[in-house]
């Protein structure tokens, strides 16, 4: 392929710029990691930039010993796992009939789904409705409102629609009903879309902030994001239980850095899956939407 000198310069310049931008995107993360592993005095003397100074795990030890943080972590992990499974079930149960022409309510329900996707209710009547349903100060609010998302529903319905009619007809002749059809044939063949949607739901559940902020008053039920928000904004919460600040090897800032990294670790661990399936999902979504 013929390529002039100016072309090469252009491509090299673009590549260099992108590498620079990637590094810039990671610098804030790196700086928080460095802070979380540095000593109090190094931080106070403005020595910490992108790598730890006076390396210490003291801040990490203090945070790891906080039972309230682990409680929030367990609550968030549990509600994310249960919520994701429930959401896939709820989504599949509605997406399957919607993918069948013989389901006569299909047209109306589909319009209802699209309208629900476009029009968002104002937050106050939404809050009042859920409170009326008994979800105020109820940890179920971490799961129940998230188990069906119209956008995800449309993705799953689109996927179900491409199953061949022949396979189903053969199964029906064998006397297999719709329920068995869905759970024994359709879902096992839908692993790709299930994985994508599991991650869509999972990230929303893990990262949720507004629902617990609106509905949960009891600190026992604070999920991780609310807990970390407290740690970020409230010195007393994060330092509670610390004996005296004179001989400590950590301060508010190093502890805060630890909590932030603490909450990022699960995301980074899941990241290889997240990227792969999210890109796939975004493609399906963009084709449809």
């Amino acid at each position, binding site marked *: 392929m013929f390529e002039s000198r100016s072309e090469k310069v252009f491509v090299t310049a*673009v590549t260099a710029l992108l590498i620079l*931008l990637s590094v810039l995107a990671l610098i*804030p993360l790196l*700086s*928080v990691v460095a802070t979380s592993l540095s000593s109090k005095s190094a931080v106070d003397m*403005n020595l910490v930039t992108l790598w730890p100074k006076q390396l210490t795990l003291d801040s990490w030890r203090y945070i790891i010993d906080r039972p309230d943080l682990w409680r929030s972590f367990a609550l968030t992990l549990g509600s994310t796992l249960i919520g994701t499974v429930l959401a896939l079930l709820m989504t599949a149960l509605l997406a399957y009939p919607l993918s069948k022409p013989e389901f006569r*309510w299909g047209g109306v329900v589909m319009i209802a789904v699209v309208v629900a996707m476009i029009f968002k209710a104002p937050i106050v009547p939404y809050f009042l409705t859920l409170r009326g349903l008994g979800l105020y100060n109820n940890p179920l609010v971490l799961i129940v409102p998230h188990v069906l998302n119209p956008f995800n529903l449309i993705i799953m319905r689109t996927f179900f629609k491409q199953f061949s009619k022949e396979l189903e007809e053969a199964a029906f002749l064998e006397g297999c009903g719709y329920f068995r059809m869905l759970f024994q044939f359709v879902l096992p063949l839908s692993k790709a879309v299930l994985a994508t949607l599991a991650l869509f739901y999972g990230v929303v559940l893990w990262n949720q902030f507004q629902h617990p902020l609106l509905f949960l008053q009891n600190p026992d039920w604070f999920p991780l*994001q609310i807990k970390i928000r407290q740690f970020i904004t409230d010195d007393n919460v994060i330092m509670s239980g610390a004996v005296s600040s004179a001989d400590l090897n950590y301060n508010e800032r190093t502890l805060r850095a630890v909590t932030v990294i603490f909450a990022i670790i699960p995301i980074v661990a899941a990241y290889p899956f997240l990227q792969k399936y999210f890109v796939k999902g975004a493609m399906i979504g963009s084709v449809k939407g």
Partner: protein
Amino acid sequence: MRTAALQRMKVYWPLYAMAIPGIVFLILFKYIPLAGAVIAFKDYSVFKGFVDSPWVGFKHFETLIHHPDFARVFGNTMILGLLKIVLVFPVPVLLALMINEIRKSALKKGVQTALYIPHFLSWVIVSGIVFDFFSLSGLFNVVLGWFGHEPVLAMQESGYFRVIYVITSIWRDAGWGTVVYMAAISAIDPQLYESAMIDGASKVRQIRHITFPLLLPTVLVLFLLEIGNFLDLGFDQVFNLLTPMTYSAGDILDTYVFRTGIQQAQYSFATAVGLFQSVIGFILVFVFNRLSRKVSDGGLW
């Protein structure tokens, strides 16, 4: 006729049974709250509920228009919305065009990974990182110190709020925003580039005359969706970046509704604010969709 219907039900009832939980969910969590928006025209009372609370017409909207807070909050929302469209929206388009030029696929993957990661962090975490970055001993002030500058507490000064809003929006979501554009670019027929190269078109000209025009319909659709969310700046983001010192620049409709509606329990008034916001968004999409259909055949509908 009735026996036929009965016969139908005998075979198809499982489909209807399956659909019921989802339909109930949509009614309870989407449609009742949507219908509940009528309390913007009522004096909502907890004991009477959505239906029986007395009608008051446009009373709350009149209060709203004359409320001194409203002008400030609405102004802040407009400014941030405009900044988002002008400064944040074009970034993924540029990034996608650039990423497309990288030859080595390993490098391409690395760049994409680095740019995607922030998208998966919650706004609480992002705000934690940002607060750390701009803290007194944070990286920002350390670097300022090298150049002999006095430290700046950017998170506590309203003058910096809009800049921080724009930067965090780009940092978290611009990389991720390239996904859709990359998909659109990869769908372009390679023959177009081949014949352009035979004609001696340079890289820059190929981008200008092939990639960009063919990407434009996608850009337009996403632009329309963005316009519809013009006043919807993201509650989580603004709420978490806000400090009491930055209210004058960062208090927006979403945070205002949260304070007046949920915390101070002025239910009807806050619903009026929310409804006002939705209606403006809807009008904007409608108008821009008309315009875009006039200039090209693209558009949402």
